[in-house]
């Protein structure tokens, strides 16, 4: 029992560098990087699919933007501003797609539009959750140390375990007998 508690202590005290939103942000960062490189390298075939013939440079520029975003997200200490930047980028992408829609291949356009929509949703959720995750880690470490001694029990923890066993659980709060031996007195 005290071993488990010790294990717990170690765990609570390790500050995760990234929480789940931070890790999602990382994945979005790699996604940006990959998409950006694709837009730069394969600008020509992509442009054909999306109705952007002759605007390959514009596509490459967007690719460059994605690469910058990706690197930013992956290297920043606070990822939130970069993810919010991605949301703005998503809007630009959607506008470009819509603007060239008349010349695009319908299947490719639909796929591209759906992808932009899906990734925008992920960006928004990620940015919202990052609010509570990307804090000041130094302050957090201080708090963990300081709070580790904050107790509700003036008489000490071990003294207090079961100290309120005198409390009579009211009848309407007693649970069904499923967890008691059925033939107990």
């Amino acid at each position, binding site marked *: 029992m005290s071993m488990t508690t010790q294990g717990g202590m170690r765990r609570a*005290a390790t500050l995760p560098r990234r929480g789940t*939103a931070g890790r999602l942000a990382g994945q979005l960062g790699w996604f940006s990087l990959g998409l950006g490189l694709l837009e730069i390298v394969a600008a020509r075939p992509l442009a054909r699919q999306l109705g952007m013939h002759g605007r390959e440079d514009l596509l490459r520029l967007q690719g460059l933007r994605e690469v910058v975003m990706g690197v930013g997200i992956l290297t920043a200490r606070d990822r939130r501003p970069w993810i919010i930047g991605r949301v703005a980028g998503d809007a630009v992408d959607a506008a470009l797609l819509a603007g060239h829609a008349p010349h695009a291949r319908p299947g490719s356009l639909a796929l591209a539009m759906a992808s932009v929509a899906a990734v925008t949703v992920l960006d928004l959720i990620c940015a919202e959750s990052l609010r509570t995750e990307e804090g000041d880690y130094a302050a957090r470490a201080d708090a963990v140390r300081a709070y580790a001694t904050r107790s509700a029990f003036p008489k000490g923890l071990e003294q207090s375990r079961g100290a309120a066993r005198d409390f009579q659980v009211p009848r309407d709060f007693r649970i069904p007998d499923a967890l008691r031996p059925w033939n107990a007195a």
Partner: protein
Amino acid sequence: MRALVWHGKEDIRCESVPDPRIEHPRDAIIKVTSCAICGSDLHLFDNMIPAMKRGDIMGHEAMGEVVEVGPEASGKLKVGDRVVVPFTITCGECWQCKRGNFSLCERTNRNGAMQEKVFGRVGAGLFGYTQLTGGYPGGQAEYLRVPCADETHIKVPSTLSDEQVLFLSDILPTGWQGAVQCDIQPEDTVCIWGAGPVGLMCVVSAVLLGAKQVICIDRVPERLAMAQANGAIPINFDTESVIQRIDELTDRKGPEKCIDAVGMEAHATATLDSIYDRVKQAMMLESDRAHVLREMVYVARPGGVLSVPGVYGGLVDKFPMGLVMNKGLTIRTGQTHVRRWTDDLLRRIEEGQLDPSFVITHKVPLEQGPAMYKTFRDKQDGCVKVVLKP
């Protein structure tokens, strides 16, 4: 007087508003000496619960000194009394109040007809908690009108500080009821989701009530540190698998008792189902994120109890009713019947059995309230519980 006023999503302002007056013979007016921001207020701050009106005064955890008493309340209260105000307004006379179900009082919700349309039936009036629950101005203000004041108060002795008794208004009895709903047995493992102020009060209560093992799950390290300091085994869902750790700790049997002290705003990126819920919320296809409920149903020991003090506002999706049924689980929930527990809890505080003030991390003037909402929600600056001084 000054008060914290709701203006919309993430928009709470400290403003001048008219002083409250006695409106009914059972009213009293309290000069607020301390009040607090609750996790439930965050649901309003995030605009997750409908029926807030621009101009509504926030706050349901308040205490202070009685400065005016209506004629019908004067038998039990007098000017100068020091009282904590329960967040549930109770008449003390109706069918529910007679049974101790104070948060279900059938008379104190003056907008009962409105709530009946939405909920089917009526529950008690609450301070500062939407038009649905009566639209009563809240206690994050210099003065508070307390309806049915002869019943809706807890007298506290001058030997105890504000900080020691303020939480009798809500989070302490809420954590206590969360644990009492589990009817804790000496061989029980009690697993608590959330190490916010309510989760921490659940930890303290489960320890006092003598659980064999108390586990607490969150992702905020400093909150987990507090849970651990008070006897819980912490699980950080950011860094470890909740299911696997619970299996290890319960010999693969699962906890007999589970408590949801998180509610409708479970961390949105924690798991795939939370992301799914967040997307559906954005499309207005559901109102609450039910990840914690699902996880409890899944890990609980068959025949076990799920206690849900965490607040839910409306509809949840993908709720595994088949598991609830086949595992024979019992679900107990509700707003807290504050007064039902407070005499006993006050005695325990007086006797030095517990001191709930340990959760307070920020004590600031009322004017700083609006900024503190954000600090508290975003868990910045090590914030766990904010007390405001009007």
